């Protein structure tokens, strides 16, 4: 058995930091088989319970070993209808791969790369699974077509429900479309994966804002839905709350990424939505969104893109692979710096002033708490992108006063059940901004609760 994991080919950093094509190129069958052969096929696999949607990982890897990729796809598909997406964006190193027994002595099996290989194979070969769905003709509504919504929709559809998904934007996929850049997750892959839910018989409706276009009460009373799942995500950007944050040139990551990803501003003027970033860009934050924003700014032609983060490198919450890729692409990490003020001329940002931090005792997150030092450093900038997290979208809550939320705007649930009978919720709108796969896990589990609720109430 090969000791080290198989390395996935990638585009050269100096080439890829100028284009929006995918960075990681995927494994071919030969490489996939070599990697699959590293799996020990444990009797009590630790990877499966570490997967939020409980994919039978050893089984699909075994299928790859046997060169039965179709079967490998069917194995994954039972638990996760979006393998080409999850294989790309899951933080595997914190989930299945961390649990892998091989990780103790050497390197874990590259489960994510294998999942992606299988997902891509299925898309390439247009593998379709004709599922036998016994219609029960009971209507359920899903709010939001992001990871939580798609996952809940697929699970409910398999149980025989008639499922309608309502999306506020003009494309389906939620954060997969507006948030995650193409170089990490190509948008045609998102569309192809969502098509699988359509093939299953899930109906998607764009341009409908639940709470506005149709209220929750109208969904029940006028449309006859028996239960509703809220998977409307966390899209409200958090602000630093420092002076100068509203100067022009200071973006929230959501705006910047939505312009580039959903509105395709990178192709301006071939597409009509512009984006302007300048040469010196300060990205504030250390999560996946911050790294995505920084790498996107670089690709748009910015010379100096740096990340301002108030902790150190070890505390970065971003996916490890993305941090490595960002460093290779020339993103500068300026650590232990906390922005305290933006200043400019004529309402246009020119400088960001940061307080220098030092690490103190561990805080509730287990990471060493950044402490202010009273010393400052100032950087000249053309623009800044604030990426310090998102709160749940506010519209549904303001239109639905009896929907209970906590002080941070997150929907309060008990076994996915909200304060309104028959209304369930899961994903970022409940947890605050987290990962694609956690949202999918929540959607899947909420579907079971909705099924129970409907059975007990009809």
């Amino acid at each position: 058995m090969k000791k080290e994991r198989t390395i996935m080919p990638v585009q050269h950093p100096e080439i890829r930091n100028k284009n929006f094509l995918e960075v990681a190129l995927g494994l071919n069958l030969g490489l996939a088989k070599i990697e699959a052969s590293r799996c020990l096929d444990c009797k009590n696999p630790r990877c499966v319970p570490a997967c939020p949607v409980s994919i039978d990982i050893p089984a699909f890897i075994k299928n790859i070993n046997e060169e039965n990729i179709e079967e490998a796809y069917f194995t994954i598909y039972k638990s996760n209808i979006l393998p080409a997406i999850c294989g790309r964006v899951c933080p595997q190193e914190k989930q299945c791969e961390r649990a892998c027994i091989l990780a103790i002595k050497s390197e874990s099996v590259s489960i994510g790369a294998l999942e992606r290989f299988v997902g891509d194979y299925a898309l390439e070969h247009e593998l379709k699974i004709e599922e036998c769905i016994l219609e029960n003709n009971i209507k359920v509504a899903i709010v939001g077509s992001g990871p939580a919504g798609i996952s809940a929709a697929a699970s409910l559809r398999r149980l025989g429900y008639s499922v309608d998904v309502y999306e506020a934007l003009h494309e389906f996929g939620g954060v997969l479309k507006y948030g995650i850049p193409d170089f990490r997750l190509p948008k045609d892959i998102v569309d192809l994966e969502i098509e699988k839910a359509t093939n299953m018989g899930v109906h998607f409706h764009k341009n409908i804002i639940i709470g506005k276009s149709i209220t929750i009460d109208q969904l029940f009373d006028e449309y006859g839905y028996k239960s509703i799942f809220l998977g409307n995500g966390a899209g409200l950007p958090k602000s630093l709350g420092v002076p100068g944050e509203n100067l022009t040139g200071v973006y929230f990551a959501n705006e910047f990424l939505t312009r580039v990803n959903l509105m395709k501003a990178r192709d301006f003027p071939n597409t009509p939505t512009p984006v302007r970033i300048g040469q010196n860009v300060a990205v504030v934050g250390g999560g996946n969104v911050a790294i995505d924003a920084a790498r996107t700014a670089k690709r748009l032609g910015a010379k100096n893109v740096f990340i301002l983060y108030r902790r150190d490198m070890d505390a970065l919450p971003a996916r490890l692979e993305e941090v490595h890729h960002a460093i290779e692409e020339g993103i500068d990490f300026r650590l232990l710096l906390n922005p305290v003020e933006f200043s400019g001329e004529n309402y246009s940002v020119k400088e960001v002033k940061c307080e220098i931090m030092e690490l103190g005792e561990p805080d509730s997150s287990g990471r060493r708490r950044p402490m202010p030092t009273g010393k400052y450093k100032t950087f000249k900038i053309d623009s800044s992108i604030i990426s310090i997290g998102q709160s749940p979208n506010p519209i549904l809550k303001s239109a639905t006063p009896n929907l209970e939320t906590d002080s941070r705007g997150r929907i309060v649930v008990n076994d996915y059940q909200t304060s309104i009978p028959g209304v369930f919720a899961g994903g970022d709108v409940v947890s605050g901004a987290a990962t694609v796969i956690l949202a999918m896990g929540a959607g899947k589990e909420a579907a079971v609760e909705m099924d129970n609720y409907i059975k007990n109430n009809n």
Partner: protein
Amino acid sequence: MYRIKHKEILNVDVELMIVEAPFVAKNAQPGNFLIVRVDESGERIPLTIVENNETDVTIVYQKLGYSTTLLSKKQIGEELFDVVGPLGKSSHIRDVKCVLGIAGGVGAAPLFPQLKEYANQGIIVDLVIGGRTKEHLILVEKYKEFCRNIYYATDDGSFGTKGFVTQVAEELYQTTTYDLSIAIGPLIMMKNCVALNKKYNVLTDVSLNPIMIDGTGMCGNCRVTINNKTFFACVDGPDFPADGIDFEELMSKQQYYKEEESHICRMKLGKE
């Protein structure tokens, strides 16, 4: 879906459309707006819902940039690619006796549903409407249906007073008492109205239309500073009490993509 049922040229710059959009129309309230995309790769254009019935919405747009010019090329019977709404908070109707609407240019469109709602509630409404020329005074016939008095101002003097709406309003304030003024138009006009109204102790409401992307509170492009606090025009507005709004900041934000806008207009429409 989103079929254009009616189209009217209001003047050389401004047009009106009635579009079939039942999911927008059904729950729309005065003060709400919608977002239009003309074609598959189109920009998201926010526009006030001027009027609506159960299935259709009326929009008014000025052919100012590339995307609104594309919109104006669509004809009756054709479809728009996307229409979504209703967005924004519905207008907060204050408990007042006498309201003065002040409309500048295409601002007469977003003012219309609000002012009409005041009239519907039995409140006396007067209107000062201004534009570059007589042709730029829009929706006047519709306003006549519920306004007590209408006063006119044009830049060139082709109709009504030659000059600004603020001049006309100031003259009115000498003889008439208003407890609220709703001013909607270019930022500089709104700013000047606020200053004038302060002088005469008249409360001002405005409607803002900063650049937006999603219109649902996600992007934060539309942030507005009011008394040093940040608001999102899309979900906290678009109507705001005007006191404390940083208009200078809004004007600077509105200019941010000016170069790009003229570039695409030059390139694709052959115009400046």
